[in-house]
C-alpha cells in the first residue's frame, strides 16, 4: 500500500507547493473536498511514482483560492466542479465554466443557505 502523506498547508502556499511538485515530476491525481464546520476542506492529491502526497487546507467561505490550472492545466475540470457544487471561490480557472458544468435541479452550491446567491 502506498504511503498516505497528508501535508497541511495554508491556502496561499498552494501554488508554491504545486509548482514544487510539478518540478519534481509529480502528476496531479485528484482534488477532493469535504464540507467541514469552518469551510471546505480541500485535498490535492499528487503522485510521483513512489510517493503519494496530499496537500490539505481548509478554505473558508470568504477565501479566494487561486486555481492551479496554470501549473496543472488539467485541474480545470476538478476546480470547476468543486466551485460549482461546493461553492469554493476558486479564481482564475482556465477555462472557467462559470458554474455551468452541470445542470442541476436543486440549488448549488450545497453549503449555501436558503436565500443565498
Amino acid at each position, binding site marked *: *500500500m*502506498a504511503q*498516505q502523506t497528508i501535508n497541511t498547508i495554508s491556502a496561499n502556499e498552494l501554488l508554491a507547493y504545486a509548482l514544487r511538485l510539478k518540478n519534481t515530476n509529480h*502528476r*496531479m*491525481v*485528484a482534488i*477532493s*473536498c*469535504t*464540507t467541514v464546520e469552518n469551510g471546505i476542506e480541500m*485535498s490535492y*492529491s499528487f*503522485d510521483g511514482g513512489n510517493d*503519494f502526497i*496530499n496537500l490539505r487546507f481548509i478554505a473558508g467561505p470568504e477565501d479566494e483560492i487561486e486555481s492551479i490550472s496554470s501549473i*496543472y*492545466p*488539467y485541474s*480545470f*475540470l*476538478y476546480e470547476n466542479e468543486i466551485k460549482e457544487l461546493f461553492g469554493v471561490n476558486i479564481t482564475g480557472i482556465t477555462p472557467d465554466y462559470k458554474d455551468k*458544468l*452541470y*445542470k*442541476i435541479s436543486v440549488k448549488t452550491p*450545497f453549503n449555501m443557505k436558503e436565500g443565498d446567491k
Partner: protein
Amino acid sequence: MGKETVIPFGPQHPVLPEPIHLDLVLEDETVVEAIPSIGYIHRGLEKLVEKKDFQQYTYVAERICGICSFMHGMGYCMSVESIMGVQIPERAEFLRTIWAELSRLHSHMLWLGLLADALGFESLFMHSWRLREQILDIFEETTSGRVIFSVCDIGGVRKDIDSETLKKINSILDGFEQEVSEITKVFLNDSSVILRTQGLGVLSQQAAFDLGAVGPMARASGIDIDMRKSGYAAYGRLKMEPILETAGDCYARTSVRIKEVFQSLDLIRQCIALIPEGEIKVKVMGNPKGEYFTRLEQPRGEVLYYVKANGTKFLDRVRVRTPTFANIPALLETLKGCQLADVPVLILTIDPCISCTER
C-alpha cells in the same frame, strides 16, 4: 472564412452508448474545435452518503458504473476496511483479484467491440461481444450477476468459488484465449483497421503527462502508470509488468488493451494456481472513523477513492475520481484537427465511462 460547419454531436447519437455532448466546429470534415458539455448523467452519487449508511453505500458504489462495477465496490470496500483497520482473509484478496481481472477482460472485450462498431466494422463488433458473453457467464456463475455483482463486501467477499469451478474457469479461459487471439489479430493486422487507427489522435509522452492521462491512455504513450504495481489485493503476489507502447495513437491504445486482455488471462491463471484455502470474510463491527485515499487500476485507468468517516453510520464524504474524468483533457487535445469520422473513434479510445465521470 465562413466555411465553418457547426453541428451538435450527442447527447443522443447512434455511436455514443452514453450521452456526452460536443459542439463540433468543422471545416469540410476536419474538426477545428470541439467543445464538450457533460452532465447528462450527473446524479449526485457522492452526496448520497448522507442518506445511505456505509454498508448500504457499498451497493451504491457498485452502481457508479455498470462496466467496472466490481472495481468500484472493491475500491470503496478497501477504503472503508483501511479506515477500520480490517485485514481481510487472503482467499478473499485472491477472489477479488480474480473478479477484478475478469472485469478487466469483460470491459476490454466490450471496448474492442465498441471500437469496431465506431470503425464501422460490424462483424468484429459482434464477435467481440459474443466472446464477452463467456466472461459474463463466468461472472453469473460465480457472483450470480451479469454486470452488477454485489459480491464485494466490507470485510471480504460474499461468495466463494469452489475449486471445481476454478478449474472450469481455467478451461473456459483457454477456449476464450484461442478465439480472442483470432479476432485481436484483425484489430492489429487488418489494413482497414490500421488505416483508421494508426497515427490517429497521437498523444506524445510529454503531452500525456501534461494532460494527466491515466490508464491505457497513458500507457499507450509510454507512461508507466499501473496501480496494480502498488500491490493491493493479491497483486503483490502475482507476476506482472505494465504494458507499455510508445506511439500514443489509437493503434497503440488498441494494442495496449489487447495485450492487457492476455495479461489478465495470465493473472487469473496465476491467481487460480496460487489461491489459498480459508475464510472469505471477516466480521466487521462498529463504525469507521478516519479518512483514506485508495487507488486502484480499473480497466480505464487509475481510480481514486477518498472516504472520510466520522464514527457514525453515515460517512462524511466519499469522493471518487474516475479514470475517464482524468482522461477528458487528453481526449479534447486529440480531437483537435481530426476528421468527423474519427470523432467516435477518438472518444472511444479513452474508453469513456460517462456515468463514472459524472457520478
